[in-house]
């Protein structure tokens, strides 16, 4: 799998930004909620703060550690007849999609992606699993070029 093309280098930053956005928008309130409920259950503020603090620290470490690894693991290769996508830190996956089986391709940009000029490519086949081909963190130009290349292919879709 040495022939894989890595994501745009800025994708690493994108993954960090996404991880920390999630950390602050979701995990901070969730940890506060956890602390409150443990305090309420054990009627000891200390227990609540320590338990929630430990949990938050764990999530924080993950946010520090995962994006970089995740970036390193993502890769794709467009060969003559198929698209190969490899990713995953905890569960590692390699997905192969014959290009003629592709039904449609989406390019998506969230707010952070828009600001950074990156895009995510989502590939749909008739298998009905939308997530079976996702490539995040491509530069918009690459994503659009790849999309156009992929939808150009015609052939038997096997349905």
């Amino acid at each position, binding site marked *: 799998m040495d022939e894989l093309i890595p994501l745009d280098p800025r994708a690493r930053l994108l993954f960090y930004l996404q991880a920390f956005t999630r950390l602050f928008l979701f995990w901070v309130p969730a940890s506060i909620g956890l602390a409150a409920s443990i305090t309420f259950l054990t009627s000891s503020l200390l227990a609540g703060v320590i338990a929630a603090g430990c949990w938050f620290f764990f999530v924080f470490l993950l946010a520090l550690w995962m994006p970089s690894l995740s970036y390193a693991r993502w890769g794709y290769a467009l060969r*003559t007849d198929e698209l190969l996508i490899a990713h995953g830190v905890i569960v590692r996956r*390699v997905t192969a999609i014959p290009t003629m089986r592709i039904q449609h391709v989406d390019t998506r940009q969230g707010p952070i992606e828009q600001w950074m000029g990156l895009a995510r490519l989502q590939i749909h086949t008739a298998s009905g699993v939308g997530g079976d081909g996702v490539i995040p963190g491509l530069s918009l130009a690459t994503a659009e070029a790849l999309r156009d*290349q992929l939808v150009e292919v015609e052939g038997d879709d*096997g349905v």
Partner: protein
Amino acid sequence: MGSDPQSPEDWPEDDDDTEVVDTHPRTESTTDQGTWDDDSLQESALDDSPDTPAETAWRGLHPLSVLVNLLPTTWRFLRSSWILIAAVLYGRGGSAEGFADLILLSLFLGATIGRTIVHYLTLRYRMAEGRLEIRTGLLNRQTRVIAPDRVQNTELVRNLFHRISGLVEIRIETASGTEVEGLLSALSEAEAERLVRALEAGRRVRSRLSEAADTDAPAIAENSVGDLIRYGLTASRLGAVVVLLGLALELVQFSDPSQVEQVGGGLGWLGTLALLLALVTGTWLTGTVTAVLRHYGFRLIARDDVLVATEGLFTRRRVELPLRKVQVVTVAQPWLRRLVGIGTVTLETAAAREGGDGTANAEAMVPGVPSTDIQSVVRASLPALDLDLDEATLRPPHPKALRRQLLGATWRGLLIAGALVWWFWPWGLVAMVLVPINWGLAWLDHRHQGWIVTPAVVVARTGYLNRQTRVLPRAKLQSSEVRAGPILRRWGLARLVLRVAGDAVSLPLLAWDQARTLQEELLLRPQLDDEEEEPCPAAPA
């Protein structure tokens, strides 16, 4: 071809701006497909008997459809709201609130009836330019276009009311969505025949609807009542029994504790056991009777390149599915069925989905196939099959896969045994036997797993207690994935999942490198294009 559609008087054509046009991506995309053009349609129209119309005027449902639909819908309504009705009837008889509830209920019932009538009044369909168009709706109008070569299967259903009135319900399924795409609930038989034939003419497949013609064709599989009884008796209904027991326990807890003591005292241990046995036997027998009624007179035949399955005593079902739409064939042989020498063969098309009845979860299921006939049934539904399922020696999973299986078995055993020990200390300790039993089962399971890849198909077999052999034609492969979580990765194992439209088949655990090699090998697809010339694919990046 392409003439102006004739519209009936009660269907104004000029309000197009209010229409919601439901253009299904999967059903609409035929024009750019190139496989289906005017030439082929004319050709097939000529081939077919001259009275097959490629184009018809807008038609409505049969007037009797209101009656035919009313009874089932009312019944369904009553069944779904029986708790409410019971509450109204027995709750506070005669009080003002009860009266208000009654009015509310009748309003709902009225709405249900009204909807049926409006459905009859507004539904119009026609064949135009070789495609089926269905218009529905009073306020939210929608037009649905279904192209014949996108039809995964058609099903004709006759319930008791249909049979009395000589009508038939047609269900047309494409690969998209979560519902039956084309549902025409009551047509006269002649009309249904015209429609199915027009659709088949579009698909360049000729066939006859009449059942008389079907009996001439040699059956691929037939089930006698005896087969069906064997099928029904061997169906595992443990789940149903557990649910019933749970419900009984709940009821007992909610009712008066002194009454429970009374009941318990009155029955004693023996009585309770007898009650339990009666409950189990009851569910078992009911299940068997249901299975026999549902699949009564099952018959699967091949007609040109369409498979036709008919079954049912009260509600007759008839499923037609083109052979080339078959995505996966599954042979289920749970140990009880192996014991009585039968297996169940299920043919899936892309329209398959979770839950639901009829065509929804299995396009065609052959309930009881004698073990010796399984190969011939599978071959008939997958002509590309280049393997003898009985003779072939499957390749084993990776030896290390047993470790994972043992680990899982230990967890499951400990979980159940632990709960039993907790509840029934100290007698629950006996439940610890479950762990070694689970190990034994895991070992058996591991020994009976297998897989093989031939030029045309991939075969994956799992399990001992619940044995399933899945046959996937390589020409239908949509995408594949090799995946490994932390535990699998430490052992160098991986799981290869092959996806087809509507379903996925996963192979027994293999070494990561082996799985990757196999994934690449499967992409070569030697059988992919037997008819069509492949256009030039995109250049590599």
